[in-house]
Each structure stands twice: as structure tokens, then as C-alpha cells.
């Protein structure tokens, strides 16, 4: 049972989108903490 090209592409694209979301989430949290003055 071998991984097809389309499944490999699907796996890679989902992972890529997930990774792209990470910095956005971190920056959003930072902005919220900064606004609430609760960074530290």
C-alpha cells in the first residue's frame, strides 16, 4: 500500500497551511496580551 501523489499533496498542503497559521496566532496573542498589559 503506497501513498499516492494526491494524498501526499494533500498532507503537505494541510501541514503548510497549519504552519502558516502559527505565527499569526502568536502575533494575535501578543497583541491581546499587550492590550491587557499582561505580557509578564
Amino acid at each position: 500500500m503506497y501513498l499516492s501523489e494526491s494524498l501526499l499533496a494533500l498532507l503537505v498542503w494541510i501541514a503548510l497551511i497549519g504552519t502558516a497559521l502559527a505565527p499569526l496566532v502568536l502575533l494575535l496573542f501578543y497583541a491581546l496580551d499587550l492590550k491587557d498589559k499582561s505580557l509578564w
Partner: protein
Amino acid sequence: MLEAQLDASVAMFILLGFGLLWVAFGWFLGRNNRSIDDFALAGRNVGLAFATATAMATWITSNTTLVAPQLTYQFGVWGMVGYSMAALGLLLFAPMAARIKALMPHGFTSGDFIRTRYGKSAWWVFMLISLCYAIGWLVSLGMAGGILLSSLSDLDYHTGMSAILLICVLYTLLGGLKAVIATDFVQSLLILAGVLIIAWVCIDTVGISEIHSKVSEWQPELLNLAFPAAIMFLFNNIFFGIGEIFHSNVWWSRAFAFKAGIGRRAYFTAGLLWLPIPIVTGFIALSAMSLGIVPPSADMVGPLVAAKLLGSIGAVFVFVVVFSALASSMDSLLAATSDLLTQDGYKRLLRPKAASDELLKANKWIVVGLGVVTWLLCLPKMATLGALLNFTGAFVASTIFPIVFGLYHPGLTGRFAAAAMALGTLCSLILYFSIGFYVAAISSCLVSFAVCLLGLWLKPGRFDWRLFKEAKDVSQ
């Protein structure tokens, strides 16, 4: 050296520039550290953004950027998927972080917990496992620094390894956990941006179709979903990742350092955000065949592919990304291990009445000492990164159930917890050498679980949770 893109002077210039930047940042953040709580636990008041970033960045290590491609190159699709399963450790630790903070609001280290919950004998076994793991991880990070520079530039292994260690020791020493956490935030953004760009260039230049076709032609096993060793690796890695996180003071010290109510959310979000990263970094390795790259050792495949894809400017870029990944883990490990040695070694065994000032000084000396020991152990390049990392799996997975039962079940006694950790480690070391690394963590965890169940069945105890509240605050 193969595929060198940077000459020694350029590599040295980048190293010095980045080193100075992080050290200055560390000094700036640590200038108001007055007590051991400030230095070791960032004042116990870390908010959600820094908490999430530090959990994620610490887990994105040289292993995510170097070993995930290595494992994909060796085990194919299961290598990258299996590596990403290490996110389960962060996800499962999320509720535990909340429990730890609630049980021990003034706690300091994972050693504090084991000693109060299980007593001295379990504490000795736990400390031995913890220190073997910490040194193994530190050495793998130091070696990764050397491998990175030798694969991307004319600098040799020893120069790269020494420089990265020196920089991390300096800024951890100056800034403590606050510097570690703040640099982790910046480093996580740099790493994520870098990984995304390299993956995008890989897809754009080579293409998923071409990669799939070349792998199918030359090494079809890498796409085989029923590759036995790879499936075994997948399960082994799940237990390994969980064991690493559940026992290590790197994660416990953060649970103590985060504001009340933050730990659960921060670890859970960090786990979700980390999950896809090894798939992206691992996928890059599959393009090695299309690019005609034959790495001299499997752990160099990631940097070599990235350098080939991005050219000489790209080599600078790759260097910054992997350097950030290395530093974000090395600083955390230096800080957490020095806390463990200060509180559980220096204070418990040598100077029980030491005041905060004395502990602060001792902690800083221990950071330096750890740096020196790691440097000495990294001098001979003893094993590949993957082999060294997986060797520690034999130790850490044995702590999973003693920790879980210790936090949630009053029945497990210290004697059985110690036996579970010791027997789990012993059995898995035998299997590591007789079968292979891919059975070490899973066997360690299963043997330890069996001993815990035996203890609960044969001689259940009745631990009083109030003992945690009564335990003297070790920072005072």
C-alpha cells in the same frame, strides 16, 4: 564538507552578529532579576502569548529541523508523520500543567514533585533519568550546531558547536528564564517564517509531482504505508515525545512560571500549532532524490536540500532558522536543568538553608558548568543526532505513568514508582541494543505501566494531596 555555500568569514560574521544580538537581549531582559524566582521562573507571571511561543519554540528543536528530515529520508512518510505525533506530548501535558500549578503553586521543579509525592528512592531514580535525558538532549543540540555549520559553510564542526553553546550559555546566564522565553518568542517567528519559505521554494522549484515520481522510482519504500520499521517508529515516537515532556523540568518549570489559568491553554495551543511543522520540514527531505543530493550522513539531508534550493543567500537564511531552533531549545534546557540541579542538588543535598541570593549565584554557576560539560561531551562526535536522541527515549518513557498516577491517583506508592522507572529503563535499554531504537520508548513505557498497575493492585497507598501545600516553598 559538501555543498558548502558560505565561506568561513561570512559564517563567522553571522554567528557573531546573532550572538551579540541575543546576548544583549538577554542582558536587557534580565537586568531587573533580583531573586531566584525572577531568574528561574520569570517571576511566575508569564502571559498567554509568551507562554504559547515558548512551549512551541522549545519543542521546535534542531531535531525538528534536522532529525525530522533525517527520519523522512530513512522512514519516508511515516518518518514525518511519526515525528509530528510528538505534538501529543504538548497536548496531553496541557491539563497536567493546570493540575501542577494548582497542586504546587509555589513549586519549583519536577524533582520537588517526585520527592514530595514518592519519597527519596523514587526521587534518586527520577533524577538519574532526568539528568541522563537533559545531558543527552544538550549534547544532541550542541552536535546539531556543529553539523549545521559544517554543512552550510567552511567552518568546521568544533567551531560551530563551540560558538552556539557559548552564545546560549551567555544569554541564559544574563537573562534567566525571562530572556529564554522572550527570545523563544522571536525565534519561533523566525523559524516558522523560514520553514514556510523553504517549503514553498521546494514545492515551487521541484514540485510535489516530481518528488513523488522520483521517490516512487528510486526508493518506493519511503511511500509504503505498511513499512514495518516505520510503523514501529511511529508508535515509539508517540511514547518518546510524551515521556520527554511529562518528566522534563523544561516543561514543569514553565508550568510553574506561567500565570494561573494560562498553562492549559498555552500548552494545548502550542501542541496544535507544532503538529504540522515536522511534516513540512520532513517533506523537504523527500526532494533530495530529485535534486541529486546524496548526504554523507542522514542528519545532513535537511540543510543540504535547503542550501541547494535557496543558493548562497539561502544558506544564510537557513543558517539563521536552524540557529534559532537550536538556541530556543538549548537555552530552555540550560535554564531548566540548572534549576533542577540548584533546587534538587545544591539546595536539597548540600545547602538546605541557602537563601535566595546564594541560590541565584549557585544557579548561574551551574549554567556555566552545564555548558562546559556539554562542550566536552560534544567534542568527539559520538553518534548521529537521531541515534543519540532515540537512546534517551529508553529512559524518559519509563516516567510517563509514575508521573500521571502521581498527579491524579493517590494509590501509587514511592517504592513501586521507583521500580517502574528503573525496570522500564532497564528493559528498554536491553531491547534498544538487541532489537533497535524504534522499540526503546514503547517498551520502557509498557514495562513501567505494568509495574505501576502491579503496585496499585498489590499494595495501594493513600497519598494525602495536602502534603504538596504543606511542603516548604523551596524558593524561600
